[in-house]
């Protein structure tokens, strides 16, 4: 993989490396079946990929897995435009912060996309037929002269080229003063939540002019502000439960049946601080950047700056599993604070059977941890080092001991190449990794289906 001999080529690297800011991918999400994959970027665009299904009748080689279709572009549309807040004289970025698909109910697909301030519901539908044979209109749509009509016929539907139409169906505006960081569709299929730095609102998908405020942590005096909401998600099965994480590393599970305003949590998940490792950066690195329920609904996966943690909903005293993502950065925290990398928000995901967790790191690396064995592996999403269909080889960051060929030193890590956004197919071992303006899709050919625990 990538072991080509040096060939005398014109070096176009500087052109390749030039990335338009607007093309940087800011969110990735599979739909519930995994057939569709949506990405949002900083320019406010959404690109939907569709998985190609293998046509029936094609013979498969022995050992090759069927239905290992590729993802191709299905539709592209501009979701959000740059906006301006006249009251504060500040721009509102069009960057898509999150995309969430709704469960499919009919032939059309629906997704929610959000920037800092506004959530939009989009309908994605296909049209591959059109009616022909109107009585009153001709083929171009012009009204016919009635006197020329001698007989009546019933228009018939004829197949045409496939057209994908995307239309905005709802715009949920003016619900947030602060920047929206999360949206989550409820299992009831009717409501969803949107969370900003200080508040969480619950909306009904059909109602755009009203929302319920369910969490408000804004202090009366903003001088007292020391904690913000960093992520929120509904429970996958219980429509009354949701969780939100904070910049102080706490998780709060809330039950909406308890009261209308869920300022008092039902459960508080917090890991006691290790006094031995306390530093000025302790709080910053404990800030949770992402929280995800497991598919089973029993566990929570959180990501803070250096680790990924699995929590059991029944145990609030601390995580049940902790995975070191890049512990070698602990001694570099001051530099990372200086260049702001310490504030990077990494996402984390579960695989379909909740047996593997995955999260991103720097230098185009991302990490996968097998929960059963506790072992982690480092992989790379970088064009130079991989050809299509090549097998990914594992990477290693050299932190001491015997240095192996291919190891990367900590000081050689490229902190501008961060893997922040990713998604795992809901049923199969297919992952989508966003690396700046590139989308990588990796499939596990050896074990395409998720292993059952």
């Amino acid at each position, binding site marked *: 993989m990538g072991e080509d001999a040096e060939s005398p080529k014109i070096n176009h690297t500087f052109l390749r490396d030039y990335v338009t800011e607007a093309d940087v991918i800011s969110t990735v999400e599979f739909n519930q079946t995994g057939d569709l994959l949506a990405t949002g970027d900083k320019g406010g665009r959404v690109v939907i990929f569709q998985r190609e299904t293998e046509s029936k009748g094609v013979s498969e080689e022995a050992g090759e897995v069927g239905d290992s279709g590729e993802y191709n572009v299905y539709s592209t549309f501009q979701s959000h435009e740059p906006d301006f807040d006249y009251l504060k004289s500040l721009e509102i970025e069009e960057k898509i912060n999150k995309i969430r698909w709704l469960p499919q109910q009919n032939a059309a697909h629906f997704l929610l996309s959000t920037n800092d301030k506004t959530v939009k519901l989009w309908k994605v539908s296909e049209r591959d037929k059109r009616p022909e044979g109107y009585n009153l209109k001709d083929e171009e749509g012009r009204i016919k002269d009635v006197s020329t009509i001698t007989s009546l016929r019933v228009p018939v539907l004829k197949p045409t080229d496939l057209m994908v139409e995307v239309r905005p169906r709802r715009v949920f505006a003016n619900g947030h003063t602060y920047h929206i960081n999360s949206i989550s569709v409820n299992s009831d299929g009717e409501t969803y939540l949107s969370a900003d730095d200080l508040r969480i609102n619950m909306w009904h998908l059909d109602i755009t002019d009203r929302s319920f405020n369910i969490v408000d942590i804004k202090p009366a005096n903003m001088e007292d502000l020391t904690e913000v909401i960093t992520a929120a998600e509904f429970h996958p099965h219980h429509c009354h439960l949701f969780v939100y994480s904070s910049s102080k590393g706490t998780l709060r599970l809330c039950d909406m049946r308890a009261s209308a305003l869920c300022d008092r949590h039902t459960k508080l998940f917090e890991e006691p601080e290790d006094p031995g490792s306390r530093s*000025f950066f302790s709080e910053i690195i404990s800030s949770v950047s992402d929280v995800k329920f497991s598919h089973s609904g029993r566990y929570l996966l959180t990501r803070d700056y250096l680790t990924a943690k699995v929590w059991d909903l029944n145990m609030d005293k601390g995580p049940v599993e902790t995975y070191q993502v890049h512990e070698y950065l602990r001694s570099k925290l001051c530099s990372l604070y200086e260049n702001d990398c310490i504030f990077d928000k990494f996402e984390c995901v579960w695989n379909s059977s909740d047996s593997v967790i995955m999260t991103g790191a720097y230098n185009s690396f991302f990490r996968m941890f097998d929960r059963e064995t506790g072992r982690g592996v480092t992989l790379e999403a970088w064009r130079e080092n991989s050809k299509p269909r090549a097998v990914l080889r594992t990477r290693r960051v050299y932190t001491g001991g015997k240095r192996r060929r291919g190891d990367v030193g900590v000081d050689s890590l490229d902190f501008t190449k961060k893997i922040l956004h990713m998604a795992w197919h809901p049923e199969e071992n297919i992952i989508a990794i966003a690396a700046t303006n590139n989308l990588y899709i990796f499939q596990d050919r050896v074990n395409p289906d998720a292993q059952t625990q």
Partner: protein
Amino acid sequence: MFPKGTKRKFSDSGEEAAPSPAAARTLSSSYSLQRQSLLDMSLIKLQLCHMLVEPNLCRSVLIANTVRQIQEEMTQDGTWQIMTQALAAAQCPADRLVATEVLCRQTQAGQSPKPFSVSGLEEGYHSEEVVMDGDAEAEVAMSSLSPVSPQLSSASYLAGPFGMGPCCEECASEGEDAERHHLRADSRTGEQVFGTFEIKHPAPPPDPALEELFSDVDPSYYDLDTVLTGMQSTPKMGPYDLLESLSSHGPTALSSSATCRSDLNELDHIMEIIVGS
């Protein structure tokens, strides 16, 4: 970057006795230097969020908490008192960063340590070559919009970090680049680090032009309260104030960002307000 083993010193130095008095002095002085540089870095980060987009509240809160933590520790140490007194006696610095000059002018002797006091800010800004080259004028114009009023109260230095005036992200990153370069080069010895933060230039006499510039700014605007909410809860500068500023200071006042696109968008939006009303 701090040498290995420093981390332990970070948390331990105030608590356990050092092997010898001389060693103890060295240990704690290096620790306090590191702490000081962290404080300065944090203050710069909070101040330099001159962006057209609202700054990230989470980041601002985390940095502010770090500053509070350092300040609390320094207050317990007693070093906070020493620092504020030393600064009170010092001349004002930085021929470049105009905002700093304005702030420095207000330093009073013997200020009791309060969260984010002006003197703390001053310590953080003197003589750091943070300003971008050739942009001194833009800097002046920029700070005139999001400046600190001459009647700065000690609690209000945080003007800027939580989303006040138009800011320049590129300037911030440029500034931080220069700063990083500075810090990395100077982190070898404690003395060099300390030297970086030495006051290099005496303060110029109060500038009547600047006084006039700030005369119409509402001092209550710079309460910490407002600062943390950005302009959101008490919008002292509505679109019409913006227009006034525009006319008096020109478009560069709004954005020192190099992107023409933002300037044009800005003007477009302002035109829409005028035409729309």
